[in-house]
């Protein structure tokens, strides 16, 4: 969070014509500075978590807003994703005589990939933008300055509870998305498409392992941390006015979504590498 003034030397206000090279240089400089700023912000947030836990009266309302109020939206979207997967996959599998195997495909896709990514995307959309807008408004209305003037670090009071809520509650939301997706997929397959229920669940059980569910839940921890840090950082660095706050909210979602997909790729690679080194005979695609 940059609050200091910048020294650009005595030529401030000079009117030297700006070329494309100047602009490129400034963009590279700004990009590097931004990465450094996010890194410092993250380190300060983690530092506060280790030093002092926020009061329960501060934590609980934020846990409620981020976790409990996200349950319905995550459950509904999770259910529909499972149902859509079933509808899209049924005819292909049925033509090959593999309709009873759909449970394994739908459920493995949900617990390893779609559940965590979907829960994280919903969290970024519903909570990330809202956090950025709230903190951005607090910044432009001097509430962040007021906190500092009252001797309280805004990162400790505002960012740490939101970080903890996202980090600790996203695994539960992921499990909720997984569960509802599994139910939605099974409902469509067995009740609408007429797939044999016993065979559907048997194949699912044979193919999906506890480790697959764990892989998805572990990924979600990284997603939750990224959403909280990016959204709070955007909020703290919001520019003045309604446009500035709106931009911060949009950037919070866009950057969080990009981070989710990037982390999904990197963690998938890392998990597969680890899985193959531990169990060389099996395939463990994340």
């Amino acid at each position, binding site marked *: 969070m940059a609050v200091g003034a910048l020294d650009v030397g005595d030529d401030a206000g000079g009117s030297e014509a700006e070329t494309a090279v100047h602009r490129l240089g400034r963009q590279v400089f700004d990009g590097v500075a931004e990465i450094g700023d996010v890194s410092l912000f993250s380190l300060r947030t983690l530092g506060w978590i280790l030093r002092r836990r926020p009061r329960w009266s501060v934590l609980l309302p934020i846990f409620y807003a981020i976790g409990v109020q996200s349950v319905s939206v995550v459950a509904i979207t999770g259910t529909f994703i499972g149902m859509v997967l079933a509808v899209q996959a049924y005819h292909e599998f049925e033509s090959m005589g593999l309709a009873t195997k759909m449970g394994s495909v739908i459920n493995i896709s949900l617990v390893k990939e779609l559940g965590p990514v979907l829960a994280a995307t919903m969290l970024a959309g519903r909570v990330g933008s809202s956090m950025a807008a709230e903190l951005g408004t607090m910044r432009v*209305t001097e509430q962040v300055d*007021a906190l500092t003037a009252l*001797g309280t670090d805004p990162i400790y009071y505002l960012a740490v509870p939101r970080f903890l809520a996202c980090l600790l509650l996203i695994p539960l939301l992921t499990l909720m998305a997984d569960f509802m997706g599994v139910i939605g997929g099974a409902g469509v397959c067995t009740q609408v498409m007429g797939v044999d229920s016993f065979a559907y669940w048997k194949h699912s059980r044979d193919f999906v392992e506890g480790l697959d569910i764990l892989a998805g839940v572990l990924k979600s921890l990284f997603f939750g941390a990224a959403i909280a840090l990016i959204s709070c950082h955007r909020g703290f660095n919001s520019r003045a006015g309604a446009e500035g706050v709106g931009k911060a909210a949009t950037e919070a979602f866009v950057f969080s979504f990009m981070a989710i997909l990037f982390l999904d790729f990197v963690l998938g690679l890392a998990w597969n590498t680890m899985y193959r080194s531990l169990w060389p005979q099996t395939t463990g695609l994340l």
Partner: protein
Amino acid sequence: MSAGDAPAGGDLIEFRDVSIQFRRQKVLRGLNLTIRRGETLCVIGESGCGKTVLLKLIVGLLQPTTGKIYFEGEDVTRMDAKALVKLRLRFGFLFQMAALFDSLDVYDNVAFGLREHAVCGEDRVAKIVAERLQDVGLPPGLEHKKPAELSGGQRKRVGLARALALDPEVMLYDEPTTGLDPIMTDVVNELILQTQRGGHKTGIVVTHEMRTVTKVADRVVMFFPLARVGRGEPQVIYDGPPGGLEDAEDRRVRQFVRGEAGDRLRELAAQARAAGSP
């Protein structure tokens, strides 16, 4: 800091050759200013001349680009995070729009500092909050209202109660009467006077309002925006008692005090023409 660098005996705060700029915009240049213990200093001047920046520099909410700021001989610009927290607890800050925390009600806003710094138990917190709300003339029953439900004057008074909750030694007021009607302006001025005289506090009041100046100030300094100050000319164009403003030597001071546009409208038109010309 060596003993020779420290400000003199009765001086509480000293700005020594302080400059600050935001990206390409210089706001303060080579500012030298001393604030004495126990006085109420009013800082006046046109918008954008750096009055609010001055307040934020004192409590380390902003860092100067160059120069030093001393509080009781300690260099604020070199303080670590812990020392800054200790320093800030000795100040009360009334922000321009009160800056009440939206998510908390009036009671929790006033109690915020007491709880965060574990100054006392909840019973004592309740007593202090009730006293402070009474001091600023807020009727009972407002404690559980959210800031959005309050009028502008009520917000300012809650902001003042919050700033006073930790019984600070120095009060910083950032445009305390902006946006208030004449009656409420006078109420807030009375409260400032009461706080300063009754509590024997040092105060710095940033304002545009001449009624506030005449009512509360022991001393007045007037800033001029850097864009309108010649090279080498000091930014502080008046430093003296409020009674001397009307007869100040500098024409710009007299114009500001009397609220006369003077040549300003012609200057603005010339600037607009210059900016629009190719």
